[in-house]
């Protein structure tokens, strides 16, 4: 079933959580809502679920559609949207089995399955989440990862038309997180239910989702498949938010960008002339050499080298303006370079993105 929202606006007092947001999720898709806290992603998910309602009387009117039918004013209990909460929200006075059975047991008599059917359905779900021996436990006796799986099974028990997950792995430790998100991906490949999940973790969004929706300050800033939003970020915010990034401030004029004593040729669509520019590049999109490769090479001194892990991370300081930035080399390149902290190297930027400078966007520690 497809899910669509049109022109959603939602304010809490003076705070605008959502500002004219429209989005369509196709049937069977797994979509990630990605953004920092306060970006409106959870509010959007809660409005889709019917746990929150968009502001009335906005122009044009806010709408929520399930399968192209309007459900904007339908409360959660009548939408059949499965919802998994960040802190699981399991019923602590009920066993795992009864938690999963809850949605079936509360149906009106006419549509309530008989006990045998409920038992069969819950047992199937327990197998699906690989917790079949734990049906009689109480939530307090489970680990965090197990609780989240029970919460998912409970949402799936009512055969929802859409599965909504709010920071599903947010409260788990790093290792369990990784396992569980692969499990969610496999689960989705098996049952193909339209799913939307909220996360602030770009790695999670890029790994699990079919499509990523990047949000900031109540608006959608970019929608696309993971590789697309990663490789072609729509603006500085998205670039900054997805992965590590370095920023050089500069000026741009006639297709050339200057930063410090260096000029860089830019192939980007930069129509602005003589304006302040923000030059972004990822730590691994560089070449580091002992001699200058050309006029574009930036001389820098190695301040610190972190040799732990598969990549070598260098903290560099520019010779011209003492700006600090970070680059990543593989171990082979580091060996060939044969330089030590304190010595000088030259850095060539391989891929940069230049945006008209926007000082409102947070930049990392290595900015100038």
């Amino acid at each position: 079933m497809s899910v669509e929202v049109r022109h959603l606006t939602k304010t809490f007092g003076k705070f605008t959580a959502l500002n004219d947001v429209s989005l369509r999720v196709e049937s069977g898709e797994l979509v990630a809502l990605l953004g920092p806290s306060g970006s409106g992603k959870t509010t959007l998910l809660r409005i889709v679920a019917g746990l929150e309602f968009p502001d009335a009387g906005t122009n044009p009117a806010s709408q929520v559609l399930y399968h192209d039918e309007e459900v904007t004013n339908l409360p959660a209990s009548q939408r059949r949207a499965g919802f998994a909460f960040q802190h699981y929200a399991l019923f602590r006075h009920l066993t795992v089995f009864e938690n999963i059975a809850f949605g079936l047991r509360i149906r009106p008599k006419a549509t309530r399955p008989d006990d045998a059917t409920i038992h069969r359905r819950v047992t199937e779900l327990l197998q699906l989440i690989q917790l079949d021996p734990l049906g009689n436990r109480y939530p307090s006796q489970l680990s965090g990862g197990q609780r989240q799986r029970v919460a998912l099974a409970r949402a799936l028990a009512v055969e929802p038309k859409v599965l909504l997950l709010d920071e599903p792995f947010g409260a788990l430790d790093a290792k369990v997180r990784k396992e569980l998100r692969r499990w969610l991906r496999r689960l989705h490949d098996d049952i193909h239910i339209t799913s939307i999940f909220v996360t602030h973790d770009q790695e999670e969004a890029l790994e699990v989702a079919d499509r990523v929706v990047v949000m900031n300050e109540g608006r959608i800033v970019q929608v696309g498949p993971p590789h697309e939003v990663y490789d072609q970020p729509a603006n500085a915010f998205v670039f900054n938010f997805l992965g590590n990034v370095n920023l050089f401030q500069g000026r741009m004029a006639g297709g050339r960008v200057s930063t410090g004593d260096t000029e860089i040729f830019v192939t980007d669509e930069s129509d602005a002339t003589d304006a302040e520019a923000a030059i972004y590049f990822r730590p691994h999109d560089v070449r580091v050499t002992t001699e200058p490769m050309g006029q574009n090479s930036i001389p820098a001194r190695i301040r610190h080298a972190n040799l732990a892990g598969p990549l070598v991370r260098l903290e560099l300081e520019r010779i011209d303006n003492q700006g600090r930035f970070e680059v990543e080399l593989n171990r082979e390149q580091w060996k060939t370079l044969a330089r030590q902290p304190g010595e000088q190297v030259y850095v060539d930027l391989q891929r940069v993105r230049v945006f008209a400078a926007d000082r409102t966007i947070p930049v990392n520690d290595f900015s100038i």
Partner: protein
Amino acid sequence: MFTRRRHDVLPGFRLTLGYTLFYLGLIVLLPLSAAFIKTSTLTWEQFWSAVTAPRVLASYRLTFGASLFAATANLIFGLLVAWVLVRYEFWGRSIIDALVDLPFALPTAVAGIALTTIYAPNGWLGAPLAALGIKVAFTPIGVFIALTFIGLPFVVRTVQPVLEDLDAEVEEAAASLGATRWQIFHRIILPLLTPSLLTGFAMAFARALGEYGSVVFISGNLPMKTEITPLLIITKLEQYDYAGATALAVVMLVVSFCLLFTINMLQWWSSRFQRSN
């Protein structure tokens, strides 16, 4: 008993524990033991006839019956008041919240004369009720009213914090699974409140059993009809029947201690229930 499990660096263990035990023994344990020792001067037959005399049995019926009704009324209305105070915003809410504790702070004698005045046949509430044929003051209903008053804060104050801490997500989870508001209340909220409701009920009941000051004014104190057990103890005392009074006191004490034990178990259950998430 009362020996240290491990050595701590903080000073004052012997001094503070010693004084605590000394003061506790002097003020509470020694006098209370007097009641039990005094009773042991009676033979079993004497004791039994003292605590099962018809007038005494009538006072038990009234005391336990009215206490049970009052605690039940407080269970229902206490939940309602706690719910309204926690969930809804309305004018005067914080003042009402503070006033709920009035029965704890108001001397029982003051409560007694105030309730008697308004529920008397010519009182503000007594007159309209009398017109409906309901006599309150000087009947068992009056005893019920007084006991409801003094037990009013217990259920409210045990339920209120639990209700405040209830996770909104749990209710939303139930709603997203298709539960109606009523289903959420009785299948999710009520079970989670049960331990605290029972604790408050037991506390209100225990308090009502021993209550004296607020009841004696409104009850009329007719033997066999509106005489509560604590009043009967005083009556026996005034007749210098110390052994008889003490025998009744021992019965009341044993019941109180059983209730205290029950309340402790309920609180233990309640705290375990709260923590397990």
